[in-house]
């Protein structure tokens, strides 16, 4: 007990000592704040149409300008943070859950279970994932929930392989044998001994996965097959940016910056967790 707390503290210390990781974490915290209370950042309502002030460049009243319907871009970007962050989390949650179950079953039981599951993974990996996502959306229609679910359902294969590999090596270790010797059943071995030890690589994969999911959602929304207007998402604000590319650079610049900074934050944090969990990999 004491020892594991010590390991946790050591991990946290290594994590925070890396300045880039801390910066990534700070960015993510900031956007969490934005998503939690977007009203703090802009007094305008995100969907309030103002015909008189269409496509106004940044000013004191509208720090990031207005869009083609006169809506405040800052307000829309702030409310869009909710969408992007929640899509990232739910999608990755789904992917992690499936990947974890498939990986644990495959690695722990081996044999035909492993063969069937891994061939299925191989097959899924043959589809260009963006093609797969687009196809499914074409049939079930675009909505926030559908996007989250589809990104999750098409993103678990890497995690499954990762967890399988970890499980394969873990189940040969002495502490698993010791657990067996004490009469622990499969379920107890899996949940108490194997699962906790796969958490570090899963955490890394999840953090990087959130970044990927945010990018995918924004691309889908940008193409008009993701989050549907008037609900603001960083991707669909950029659609308006493209439509008004010759007059309104601010519509294109700011939502994209929000995506860039957020994704960068998650990537830095993910790399930091990896280094902290396994210091040998540092700087690689």
């Amino acid at each position: 007990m004491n020892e594991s707390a010590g390991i946790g503290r050591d991990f946290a210390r290594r994590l925070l000592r890396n300045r880039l990781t801390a910066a990534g974490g700070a960015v993510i915290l900031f956007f969490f704040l934005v998503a939690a209370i977007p009203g703090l950042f802009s007094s305008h309502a995100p969907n309030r149409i103002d015909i008189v002030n269409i496509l106004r460049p940044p000013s004191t009243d509208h720090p990031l300008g207005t869009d083609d319907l006169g809506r405040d871009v800052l307000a829309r970007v702030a409310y869009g943070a909710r969408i992007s962050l929640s899509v990232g989390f739910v999608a990755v949650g789904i992917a992690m859950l499936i990947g974890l179950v498939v990986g644990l079953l495959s690695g722990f039981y081996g044999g035909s279970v492993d063969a069937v599951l891994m061939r299925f993974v191989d097959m899924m990996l043959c589809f260009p994932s963006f093609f797969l996502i687009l196809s499914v959306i074409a049939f079930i229609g675009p909505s926030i929930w559908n996007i989250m679910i589809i990104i999750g359902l098409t993103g678990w294969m890497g995690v499954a392989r990762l967890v399988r590999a970890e499980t394969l090596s873990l189940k040969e270790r002495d502490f698993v044998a010791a657990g067996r010797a004490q009469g622990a059943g499969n379920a107890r071995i899996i949940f108490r001994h194997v699962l906790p030890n796969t958490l570090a690589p899963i955490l890394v994969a999840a953090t990087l996965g959130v970044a990927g999911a945010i990018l995918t959602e924004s691309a889908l929304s940008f193409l008009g097959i993701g989050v549907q207007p008037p609900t603001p998402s960083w991707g669909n604000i950029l659609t308006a940016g493209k439509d008004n590319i010759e007059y309104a650079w601010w519509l294109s610049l700011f939502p994209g910056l929000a995506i860039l900074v957020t994704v960068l934050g998650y990537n830095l944090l993910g790399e930091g967790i990896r280094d902290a969990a396994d210091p040998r990999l540092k700087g690689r």
Partner: protein
Amino acid sequence: MLRYVLRRLLLTIPLLVGISLVSFLMMHMAPGGPIGAGTDMNPKATAESRARLQAYYGLDQPLHIQYGRWLGRLATLDFGDSFSPDGRPVAEKIKERIPITLTINVLSMGLIFLVAIPVGIYSAVRRGSVFDRISTVAVFTGFAIPTFWLALLLMILFGVKLGWLPISGISSMDYDNLGTLGRIADRGKHLLLPVLLAGFTGLAGMSRYMRSNMLEVIRQDYIATARAKGLPEGTVVFRHAMRNALLPVITILGLSVPDLLGGSVIFETIFSIPGMGQLFYQGVMSRDYPLIMGILTIGAVLTLLGNLLADVGYALADPRIRQG
């Protein structure tokens, strides 16, 4: 070697069957039905004409019979006719779109190799230098930049503000009147941004990958031996280290196929390039089932082919693989 290739080929057969089954089932498990979008919005579509459509596409048959028929036609590259008003065969539509998509992707792959490999090697050799730090920052930014956003910014800069490059299509209005050189220049101008953007994420990924490979190899004993022999640093880096660090890159080349294909949907739509990605996007928007199934299948087969080439290439380059 031949045995290895044959074994590898045999392994792809069950995968191919699996791919066709998954893409087929996926399309049919979705609610709405294949004739939903085309007929729902058309007030003239009677129940009778719907039923005719249903029969025409065999949608009234049980799923396994539909699949059997589809698989049979698939073997002859017959994906059926498009649901779109022109009703042309899907295979024909895809065939005329594929060259431009492949051209852009091959060019961007070339770009990735020309830029990323030297950058990765130099970063690794001069680890911790200013160059290494700058390239690391650039790589992280490259991973995080949404490609479509970068496309917008470059369009604003080079297309709108500076007016240097066209921002849509693959040729100018007066293309037919240009001489050969003029045509090449015109095509080049139109393809410059798309190729750059198609390769952008890969550029970041590949240089990072090359860097870590190189760092791994440099730590090996035989490099220390080469240095101890008194070989010049250039020989050590290029003769001894680089060759081995390049090996896994072959694999990455094959594995990058699905990402490049997926990306082509985005940049072809942005730049109005009449390639397979744009065709797919249009198919998705109009729920053109046969077209979506066709492109999805072709995308998967291309991916499989990429993996196969990667494995075979690797085996050719590294005797340990083909014998072990």
